[in-house]
């Protein structure tokens, strides 16, 4: 093997050995490492139930803060006003007829039929087998069409260079991002940061398909709804009290 590392050799040898080593590499993966190496399946579907009757405004602010801290957004210096990313926001909604005011947190709803996934030209906007909707930022070209399509204004575009990203949450200029349901925590058996920040059962997170889960049982008992239910998107995030 030559010690010369010029570009032609680099490309030639790389392409020549790719097929062979790729096959071997996957074999090596399976045998050397054991933990957490299984692909997720659609045996589970992750969901969240937010009870706005029990959730206080302070708790919602806490959820937003926890998301910021966990995922590293919110400290952009150059973006102004609506350019700032908001993975989760607090909404104050008033019923026009009755005057009742409700506070609720709004984030990506992780729809079963996500409009953002339908419209993405490069498959960057994707839905994982277990229902979590993500942006594969390796493929995102920054066209923002998914942002046009999202019925919940859940997505943000990164308008400036970023530094000091969280190690588990890479994010960068020119790509689109949104709530990941803290997929890096969920895959480790934990709850999303926003859910963990609320110390009551005002926000429940769990597997919608598991009949023994708290969320499944609660959804069977109390009234709940999806935001913009008429769009038939079958969201993973449900609300009661609105």
């Amino acid at each position: 093997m030559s010690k010369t590392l010029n570009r032609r050799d680099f490309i030639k040898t790389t392409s020549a050995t790719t097929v062979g080593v790729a096959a071997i590499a996957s074999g090596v993966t399976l045998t050397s490492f054991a933990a957490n190496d299984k692909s997720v399946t659609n045996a589970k579907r992750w969901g969240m139930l937010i009870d706005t009757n029990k959730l206080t405004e302070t708790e919602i602010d806490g959820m937003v803060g926890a998301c910021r801290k966990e995922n590293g957004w919110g400290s952009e210096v150059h973006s102004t006003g609506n350019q700032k990313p908001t993975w989760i926001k607090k909404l104050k909604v008033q019923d026009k007829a009755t005057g009742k005011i409700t506070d609720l947190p709004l984030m990506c709803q992780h729809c079963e039929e996500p409009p953002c996934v339908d419209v993405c030209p490069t498959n960057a906007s994707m839905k994982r087998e277990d229902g979590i909707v993500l942006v594969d930022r390796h493929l995102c070209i920054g066209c923002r069409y998914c942002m046009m399509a999202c019925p919940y204004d859940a997505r943000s575009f990164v308008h400036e260079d970023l530094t000091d990203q969280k190690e588990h949450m890479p994010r960068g200029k020119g790509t689109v991002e949104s709530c990941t349901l803290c997929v890096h925590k969920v895959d480790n058996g934990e709850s999303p940061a926003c859910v963990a920040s609320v110390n009551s059962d005002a926000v429940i997170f769990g597997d919608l398909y598991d009949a023994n889960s708290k969320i499944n049982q609660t959804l069977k008992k109390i009234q709940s709804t999806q935001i913009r239910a008429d769009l038939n998107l079958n969201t993973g995030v449900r609300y009661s009290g609105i």
Partner: protein
Amino acid sequence: MNIRYEQTQGRSLGFYALIAGLGVLILASLGAVYYMEHHGHYVTGMNNRIVWGMPHVFALFLIVAASGALNVASIASVFNKKMYKPLSRLSGLVSLALLAGGLMVLVLDLGRPDRLIVAMTEYNFKSIFAWNIILYNGFFVIVAVYLWMMFERRMNKFTSKAGLAAFSWRLILTTGTGSIFGFLVARQAYDAVIMAPMFIIMSFAFGLAFFILILMASYKWTERPLGDAVVNRLGNLLGVFVAAVMYFVAVKHLGNLYLAENAGVENFILFGDHIYTNLFWYGQIILGGLIPMALIYHPALKGNRPALGLASVLVLIGGVIQLYIIIVGGQAYPMEMFPGKEILEGYGGIAAYTPSLPEITLGIGGIAVALIAVAFLVKFLPFLPESLADEVADPHHKS
């Protein structure tokens, strides 16, 4: 009928001044692109509520016009109107040039334009956007082949087949472009299938307006004869297309007004007290619709070329305004997330948008690219007939 095509000289001071002027605009737009890409989109007026701004207005305007500019050639090849045949080559050229300009603007505004290869290789066939990428690239190939059929004497017999292919492809392409908006259920301004045919009829008007201006300018500046038979015919056609656009606009808005669920966005566009309403009535309807039709059809102005030129310019300005209202206005109006409820905090309200200079510069650069392509190519290849005087173009016309 023996039409002789001839390249333009392209050596006059005027020609070089034109190229230089357009070149400056293009360099400015490239500078704007570097500025936006280097710093990030925070330097633009776009944000998370208004994600598509001036660049997209210009890009879609040029892409829609590109499709319509091929109309003249289609009328010749597909509908066999002999008088339009000498204009076919220029029609194909203008069509490709406008598309190139529009795509340039669209691609250079991407958050990651360096990932264009990803867009060409990773396809989501459920996305109308991905389909549009295929349609736009295919359009280049089809029109190039179509032009080759027209230029190469031995291939002339295939012109009508190529013309039919180009015509069909064009209709699918423009339907696809309209569907980019028409398929978005999330926003009140868009969720309407009528957007597809409306874009087609808009393409007819904008494309023909561009074509008329380029035709009149090329013949005037190269001092070649351009008879009234051709010009008046095209002018009348433009009037018909403008009227058709107004019809579709009327149907879309009246239809929406009838449906209670869309009353909000209609009140916003038609009767609000902000810029979109003013742009709609004064810009799109009066400036872009009624005045051009008056200029074209008024008996006192029959055959008046400056009037037709002005009408074409106004149609184009009205077109940019129309797309601004569709694209930016449609995003500015908040989505109806909680019917029957009002959002006090967190979301809502008419989103503010101020076009920034880099965005406008990029958009204008796209138009400049299209025009410089036409200016150069008519010099290198024989696109323009030597004469379009009445006797040559339409020997049987009645003066």
